[in-house]
């Protein structure tokens, strides 16, 4: 029953995306060409990666506002490493990116777990700390495209089976985390820890530790996205991805992840990210005044969230009724 409801909500979002595409194509038909849709997916890939991490964090009743700063710091560090050692194989760059991102995520997780500081305060603080560290290590200077090695810039752009590596990384992450969230103990623990922390504790789940792992995963994905980001835009500086954490949270909320914790799926996060990605990519081509674009972006988010809230409320009522009938 619950499962079918969740799937209908995702179907609803899927329908909204299709409707959005139809609307856009009525103004700019070339937008729904396969190659352009692939381009939009590629452009949305970093958002998908971060949205998956954020979803897991939100499931455990937390929030990670430091993802964009983590992305920027990791991106700056790997690009500075690339400038210092241009010959370093890409596999090491990737390992460093994921490794550093993981450490930064663990730092958030430890503060939440061991010191029980509210996650929004922890990540608001680390967000500023991470940005500050970028400034300290880079001296406020940019790392520019001519300083980066060719291999460093080529990796996410390499075409494999018709799609860039960047897209494949997002696809692999979606598959991997769908399995983790539905088929592993840890994955189910995330739902339990957020859905009902007290029950989870009685069931032998360490809620704090589960939250720690959620932050760690979010950090790892942000680190990976950090490398992909600086490589894709071929530039690293203090303010890259400024304000991107809000897009990530918005993608999750649109995707039906409950901000109260315990509800959400990888597919939902994926669809939420795609919904935002399509809007972001369509606005430049549909010839709408830039003054209206922000309002339209915001409006779409509110409509999506309103629909979700509606769906959530309905479900709550049904469960109550069932409980009433049972007694």
């Amino acid at each position, binding site marked *: 029953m619950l499962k079918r409801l969740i799937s209908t909500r995702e179907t609803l979002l899927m329908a909204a995306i299709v409707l959005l595409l139809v609307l856009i194509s009525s103004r700019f038909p070339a937008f729904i060409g396969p190659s352009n849709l692939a381009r939009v997916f590629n452009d949305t890939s970093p958002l998908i990666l971060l949205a998956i991490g954020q979803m897991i964090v939100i499931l455990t009743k937390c929030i990670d506002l430091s993802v964009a700063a983590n992305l920027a710091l990791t991106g700056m560090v790997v690009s500075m490493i690339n400038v210092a050692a241009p010959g370093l194989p890409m596999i090491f760059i990737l390992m460093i990116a994921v490794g550093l991102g993981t450490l930064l995520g663990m730092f958030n997780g430890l503060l939440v777990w061991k010191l029980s500081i509210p996650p929004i305060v922890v990540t608001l603080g680390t967000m500023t700390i991470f940005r500050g560290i970028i400034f300290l290590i880079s001296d406020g200077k940019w790392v520019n*495209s001519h300083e980066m090695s060719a291999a460093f810039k080529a990796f996410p752009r390499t075409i494999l089976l018709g799609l860039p590596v960047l897209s494949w990384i997002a696809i692999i992450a979606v598959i991997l985390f769908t399995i983790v969230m539905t088929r592993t103990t840890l994955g189910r623990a995330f739902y339990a820890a957020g859905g009902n922390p007290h029950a989870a504790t009685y069931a032998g789940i360490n809620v704090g530790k589960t939250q720690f792992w959620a932050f760690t995963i979010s950090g790892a994905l942000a680190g990976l996205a950090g490398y992909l980001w600086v490589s894709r835009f071929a530039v690293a500086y203090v303010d890259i991805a400024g304000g991107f954490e809000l897009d990530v949270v918005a993608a999750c909320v649109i995707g039906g992840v409950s901000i109260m914790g315990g509800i959400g799926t990888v597919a939902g996060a994926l669809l939420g990210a795609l919904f935002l990605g399509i809007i972001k990519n369509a606005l*430049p081509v549909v010839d709408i005044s830039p003054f209206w674009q922000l309002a339209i972006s915001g409006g779409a988010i509110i409509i999506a969230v309103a629909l979700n809230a509606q769906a959530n409320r309905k479900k709550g009522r049904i469960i109550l009724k069932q409980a009433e009938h049972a007694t």
Partner: protein
Amino acid sequence: MKRRTFTALTASLSLAASLMGTSAMAQDNMRIALVVKALGIGFFEAANEGAQEAAAELGNVEVIYTGPTDTTAEGQIEVINALIAQNVDAIAVSANDTDALVPALKRAMQRGITVISWDSGVADDGRMVHLNPSSNALIGNMIVKLAADHLPDGGDVAVLSATTTSTNQNIWIEEMTKVLPNYPGINVVSTVYGDDLADKSYREAQGLMQSFPDLDAIIAPTSVGIVAAAQAVADAGKIGEVNVTGLGLPSEMAGAIESGASQSFAIWNPIDLGYSATMIAHALASGAATAAPGAEISIGRVGTITLDDSNSAAMADPFVYDASNIEQFKSIF
């Protein structure tokens, strides 16, 4: 940086000594202090190069290159106070704060020291003359000229700006629109806003290439936008078809010039700026020119400036950077 401060210190010490000893020698050499936002910044090192060039050309001029070690107004005030104590002939300052330096600079002027600001100005009563690197009108003209120079038969160009509310961007675009009739065949098809975010600018540039398949050039008068647009053009495989131009920094644009995504772009030339500031300071301190609205001051090889009502002037057109000089400037700023 340390070494430089030390050199400057020894220079000033020896000058102070010479002042106490034989004052005749000090009178022979006009001493112009070039006060920068902070030492060790490539842009200002290049300005110093220009100032030294002016000093060599003028003869009997010594340029004291100095500034704080970090970009603070307090640091600059200390430096200015030290220069007043040394009784230099002129101070040319690129200020870290519009108002904070005014009292110190006023004190300098009371002691008969010529004070001008350049690059980053101070409030009107804190200096005699301010030298802007360029003017809004010159910039507006330059950004369209850059695109037009590579489109002899005319073509479609689009503007990629920062935010819709960015004052200087809007003024430049307005000035550009005014001079458009001078460039027949150049057709501005759209103005889009990348909000000075790399990802949004990149997406807007992609959108432009999709909406206008015949687009010939993208003009981005913003350093984040021009870099992102060049990358978008390179990724779309449109190098040679779409020329990205506008205002950018050589260090950031070197890759785009190398790949061919950008034929040329413009920004002020720090060498010329240091050169011109020194020339103006010398002209005022030697009495060859007076600081009054409407006055014309010769700045050597760069030309002549005319002071406006607030005693400020624009140096010249932004300097054009392309494949021929990018190597020289990319390590400077």
